[in-house]
């Protein structure tokens, strides 16, 4: 019997350790795995690489990871903290504690999609003529200069959906899906927090992510209600 349900956050994050790469779903406040992020600092893992469209959600919900200098590298399209003062990740970027692969959002999403689809790299015109293309392989296609972008994969993906079933099939509300839809396939261990694990299996038309991409599901209330 296929059953990807786990009962505790400890089980959900089991195996997460030093030197690992973790992807985080969520955009604009929707689909952010806030419960799992909050649980991360308690896991004794360091030298982490984070893959997240914006660094600041992790700064909001797992601040101790930065305070304890356990994040060494970030892949993100946005590395700007809230407000006009420097956030901890910005200070660490400035002093070199944290390094950044600043990726245009479309290249970022496609690198994740490619990672999940077994495509090691691809060419795109996005970024040519800008700092993000510096040092990367260039090649012209149909008269247009392109830059080689490498796929992204991870040890863990943490994301939030609305409903799941024991197969790991996922249903999103509104715009929860965003990067999570792509990240689910790109990690060895995709952990999804959901509002509800249904008793039966989800109706086929409601399945936005096939369970094959998901390893663990855990039912946790919406952290924004707390």
């Amino acid at each position: 019997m296929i059953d990807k349900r786990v009962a505790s956050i400890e089980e959900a994050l089991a195996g997460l350790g030093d030197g690992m790469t973790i992807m985080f779903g969520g955009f604009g406040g929707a689909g952010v795995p806030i419960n799992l992020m909050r649980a991360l600092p308690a896991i004794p893992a360091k030298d982490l690489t984070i893959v997240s469209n914006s660094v600041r959600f992790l700064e909001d919900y797992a601040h101790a990871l930065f305070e304890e200098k356990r994040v060494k590298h970030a892949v993100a399209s946005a590395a700007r903290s809230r407000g006009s003062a420097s956030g901890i990740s910005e200070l660490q970027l400035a002093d070199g504690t944290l390094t950044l692969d600043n990726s245009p959002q479309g290249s970022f999403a496609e690198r994740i999609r490619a990672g999940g689809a077994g495509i090691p790299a691809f060419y795109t015109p996005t970024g040519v003529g800008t700092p993000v293309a510096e040092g990367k392989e260039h090649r012209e296609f149909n008269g247009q200069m392109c830059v080689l972008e490498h796929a992204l994969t991870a040890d863990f993906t943490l994301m939030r959906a609305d409903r799941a079933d024991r197969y790991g099939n996922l249903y999103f509300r509104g715009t929860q899906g965003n990067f999570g839809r792509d990240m689910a396939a790109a990690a060895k261990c995709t952990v999804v927090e959901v509002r509800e694990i249904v008793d039966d299996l989800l109706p086929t038309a409601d399945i936005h992510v096939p369970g094959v991409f998901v390893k663990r599901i855990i039912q946790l209330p919406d952290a924004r209600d707390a």
Partner: protein
Amino acid sequence: MSHKALSRNQIAWRAAQDLEDGMVVNLGLGMPVLCANFRPEGREVLLQSENGVLGVGPVATPEQEDRDLTDAGSQLITLIPGASIFSSSDSFAMIRGGHIDVTLLGGFEVAENGDLANWDAEIPGKGPLIGGAMDLAVGAKEVRIMMQHTTRDGAPRLLEQCRYKLTAPNCVKRIYTDLAVVDVTADGFMVCEMIDGLGREELQARSGAKLRFADNCKVLATPDV
């Protein structure tokens, strides 16, 4: 002569008048999203948001608010009938695959060859924020920029060469400012419209590259929105 520069809403109103029936449009953060409020009646303009929505409707009223339904700027939105929601990679397939007719973006600087700088103002202690700007600048069929004609200190933003890091080279087609509507042509900047009460020399003095003026250069007039 005395003149009155356009407000942000007036710039947005003017930019919105150029959105045609049937267009698929992505509006950037800041001033561009204001264009959604000024879409001319009777035209179906589909708004795309890069977090994965095609068919963005008005910003949600308090009764309509749903925390799981946002745009790329974290605003709580509504959907229009026929709207679709999809993954980030599909959203950028739309953007990078040439399926967006027009993107309206904010800008720091535009050069006379169409180079755009709008992502890194090099603020000390603040990290970079590319977001979807580079993809939109390269992938949309047409890139239009909305910005103040000069910085707060009066320095020009229309330049021979951008000083800030580029978002993309040679991509801007049209610029809407508080003083003028300027096209980027093979011969550089061409002013199509400018506000009343401002002389051509005065507009040139507020610009960092040579301006040419269209033969039928019109008055840039907007309602008091």
